[in-house]
Structures are given as structure tokens and as C-alpha cells.
């Protein structure tokens, strides 16, 4: 069994009476590239901050590289790269000065050549001040700063948020640079599903602070499905299928979004409901994610639209 690099046990955070994260259990093995997904306010940043000891858990624990997150030693932090949300760096510093600042915390492991190469690859100059960089360029500097010490574990909080397609691609290629190094583990939160699909081999989905999925990307892709059933008469009033996420009705059609339900099971239910005409609709990861995390009241909006028409 491979070594667990990052583990959370019932990690919970309450702000007052409101749960931001509720009993998150994760075990990320070495070498895993984990996409951490969730809608805005789902609890991703809270979870990451607790993993890095920036927030105190209300309950539960997080362990990184065998060390409790609330007591990360400098030696352990040295092995963890962290790209903060929004790439907040010291605005008055030049890239060169920031490199020197960062280098002081990684005296034996700073790869100056790698950093210089990345800065050149991103078409930046060490003389540029952070405050004069665009959001995308700051993201590139953040990544270079996080990768140059060659961390064992890289944690990134929504690193591609607000970046254009070209910068995002460059950013991901930089990330892949790390991934290709043996035994490196990456946990990154993102809203951009195409990015996740491109690099992640495992996804974790949180919704309203609750863990909703923790599986391989392939498993998730195979589990969340949409099926359209056609009826000659009116559609059935009740849909009794375990794993039903959403149900949208029109006069003679029933559109079901299901998770973890096999084709045979759906076909059997359809026969029982009085039809054999059904189509499985191809979904991309983004559609699957939206369906998986969309609030159930979307259905009401759909019904309202029906009533209007």
C-alpha cells in the first residue's frame, strides 16, 4: 500500500453555528494528483487552510507528511509547496527579490536554474515588480516559487481562477512539470473542470461542506449519467430509483440524472414505468459536476418555466 501523504479525519470547521466543512475524511497517497472540486463556498479553501495549519479545526484532524496540521514544523513546511488563492504576493517586491526571500526558506533545495527557466518560459523578467504584473503573471510567479524548491506535496487553492486560456494552459504545463517528477503529490482546488480533467487522476467533490465524492476521475465520469425516457402518455408521478440526483419533466419526457445506477437497472425501472424508449445522454465532466452539485430547487425553476409556456 502506498504511503499516505495527506490525511484528514472528520475534519470539521464551524463559523458560529454554520458548518463550513463537515467531517471531511480524505486519504491522499503519494504520487496522486487530486482535483478538489466544489462550488463557491463549498468549503474548499477552509479545508486547505486547515490542512496547512492556518485555521484551527473545530473538530477532527489533518495530517500532512505524517505531521499534525496544527503543529507543522518548519522542516515539514519546507516539503510542502502552497499556491495561495488569488496569488497574493508582496506587491512591492520584484520577482528577483521575491526569489531571494523565498530562497532563504529553502536553503538546501532551491533550484535557481529551474526558477530562472520558468520565469523565462513565462516571458517574465526578474526586475518586474509584483504590483505591475497581471493576475495571470502573478499566478505564474506563484507557481514558479512553489515549484522551485521541488516540494513533495503541492497544494494549490484555485490556482487558475481568473486566468485566460493561454495562461491557464501555460500554468498547467508548469504543473505537469512537477507531476512528471517521481513521487510528487498534488492537491488543487479548481472551478475549471477542463483543467481538472487534463491533469487529475482523482477527484474529491465537496458541497456545502460535505464530502460528496472521492474517487478516480474515470469512476466519476462513469457514475454520473443522464437518461431521457420517452412516454406515449403522461410521465409517472414518482421516480423510485436509488441514486436519483435530478428529475426534470415535460409532457411526455422524463430526464433523469443519476449517480451510480447501472443501465440495466434504469431499463428495468423504465419498463416498469411503461416505456422502453430511453436514451443515455453523453455528458462532459463540467455537465456532470454541475448536475452533481446543482441544488435541487433548480427543478422548481424548470417547472416554473413549464408553467409559463
Amino acid at each position, binding site marked *: 500500500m502506498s504511503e499516505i501523504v495527506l490525511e484528514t479525519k472528520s475534519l470539521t470547521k464551524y463559523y458560529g453555528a454554520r458548518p463550513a466543512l463537515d467531517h471531511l475524511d480524505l486519504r491522499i497517497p503519494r504520487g496522486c494528483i487530486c482535483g478538489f472540486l466544489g462550488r463557491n463556498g463549498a468549503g474548499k479553501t477552509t479545508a486547505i*487552510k486547515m490542512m*496547512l495549519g492556518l*485555521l484551527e479545526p473545530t473538530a477532527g484532524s489533518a495530517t500532512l507528511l505524517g505531521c499534525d496540521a496544527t503543529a507543522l514544523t518548519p522542516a515539514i513546511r519546507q516539503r*510542502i509547496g*502552497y499556491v*495561495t488563492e488569488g496569488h497574493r*504576493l508582496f*506587491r512591492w517586491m520584484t520577482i528577483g527579490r521575491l526569489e531571494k526571500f523565498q530562497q*532563504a*526558506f529553502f536553503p538546501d533545495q532551491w533550484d535557481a536554474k529551474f526558477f530562472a527557466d520558468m520565469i523565462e518560459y513565462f516571458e517574465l523578467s526578474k526586475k518586474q515588480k509584483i504590483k505591475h504584473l497581471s493576475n495571470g503573471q502573478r499566478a505564474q510567479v506563484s507557481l514558479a516559487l512553489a515549484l522551485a524548491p521541488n516540494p513533495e506535496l503541492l497544494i494549490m487553492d484555485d490556482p487558475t481562477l481568473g486566468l485566460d486560456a493561454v495562461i491557464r494552459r501555460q500554468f498547467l504545463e508548469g504543473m505537469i512539470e512537477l507531476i512528471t517528477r517521481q513521487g510528487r503529490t498534488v492537491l488543487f482546488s479548481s472551478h475549471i473542470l477542463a483543467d481538472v480533467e487534463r491533469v487529475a487522476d482523482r477527484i474529491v467533490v465537496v458541497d456545502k461542506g460535505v464530502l460528496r465524492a472521492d474517487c478516480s476521475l474515470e469512476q466519476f465520469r462513469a457514475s454520473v449519467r443522464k437518461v431521457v425516457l420517452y412516454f406515449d402518455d403522461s410521465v409517472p408521478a414518482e421516480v423510485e430509483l436509488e441514486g436519483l440526483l435530478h428529475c426534470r419533466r415535460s409532457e411526455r419526457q422524463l430526464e433523469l440524472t443519476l449517480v451510480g445506477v447501472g443501465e440495466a437497472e434504469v431499463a428495468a425501472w423504465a419498463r416498469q414505468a411503461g416505456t422502453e424508449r430511453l436514451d443515455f445522454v453523453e455528458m462532459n465532466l463540467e455537465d456532470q459536476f454541475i448536475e452533481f452539485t446543482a441544488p435541487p430547487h433548480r427543478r422548481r425553476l424548470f417547472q416554473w418555466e413549464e408553467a409559463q409556456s
Partner: protein
Amino acid sequence: MRFLALLRKELRESLPWLLLAGLLLLAVGLLTLRAHAQAPEGRYWQYRQGMAPGETVTEWRLLQPAKLELPGLWLTFIGPGLGLILAVRQFWFPLFTGTWAFLLHRSALRSTILWAKLAATGVMFLVVGLLWTGLYGYASRPALFPIPESPQMLLNGWIYIALGFAIYLGTVLSALSEARWYTTRIFGLAFALLVALIVAGQCHIIWIVATMIVALAILLTQTLAAFLKREF
């Protein structure tokens, strides 16, 4: 090496405020001294003209109006003002710029990060203190004024500078607090202001120094505790 990197960063970030405070103090100090030196009709010279032949001037410094009175008065604002600004710059401002997460994930102890900030502030106040001492030395030059400036004035200046450090720590405590301003958050700043009032009301140097030592010790231990457990 880590501490020095942190210290350099803090010094560089605080430097503009030190320059502002230092220039203000020097400008007020030098202009005041120049005005004194160029005003033979002033009270200082009137005293001197009233001396009897052979009379010594040893005790005159107790009578003469202090030449550094005006810069000293300014220092009561410069010291605490600098403390307030540095605390806001170092602890409150990063809450808005969002750089705490980046800073705290350095491979250094949280206490090292805090000590670097405190040391940078200490250096800032030391420089202001040295400027004040320089002004005092200049005001005491026999070539400029026959009677030296009272050493009490020098000491008072250093006390105001130390008060600035107390205001700094009090503001840091308030900045670190996550409570509301109208509840416990104001306590740090209020305590430092109370200390300033107590010190201003004391007349004996021993009580002033004792008050300052106790107050700084309380503020420092509270700041350490607050920073080490603060969530960012």
C-alpha cells in the same frame, strides 16, 4: 537566515514610515534650534543678561526654557503615531492584501515571524531615538548654546519613544483580535492609551520606568499569545 530574510522584508516595508517620522522630527528639531540660536532677544538670552558678575550658570538649566521643548512635544505624537502606523502596516494591512497565508507558510516558526516584525519595529524606534539623541547632542553643543540642554529632556524623549512601542503593541493586539471593535477588540489599544496617560501623569522617573516595563511586558506576552493562536 530565515529570520534575517523576514527582518529585511519588515524593515523594507516599514522604511517609508520611518523616513516620514525621522524627517518630521529632524525638521521640527533643527528649525526650532535654529530659531533659538538666531533669537538673542529670546527668554534664554534675557536670563543670561540678568546674571550678576561672577554668577555661575550651573543651575540655570533648571530655569531656562528647554530648547527642545517643541520637538519634544512633537515626539509625543511622532512616537505613538509611528507605533500605530507600523502596527496597522504589519498586522492589519495584510488582512486586506491577503498575504498572511503566503507569509505564514514559510518554513519558519510562527514566533520567528512575529519576532522579525517586533525586531523591525524595535529598529525603527531605535533609529528615532538616535535621531532624538542626535538632536539633543546638537542642542547641547557649547558652540551653539552656552548652556547645555537638560538631560531630563533627552530622557523624556526616550520615554515618548517607548510609549510609541506600547501603542504599537496595543494596536497589534487590536488588529489581531477577531472580535468587534465595540467589544473586546478595542482593549489592546485602550490599554496602551491608558498606559500613555498614566506615564504622562507620573512625575518620578522610577515610577515612569516601572509602569513602562510592566505595561510592555503585559502587552508583549498578550501579543505573542494572540499571534500564535490567531487564525488567518
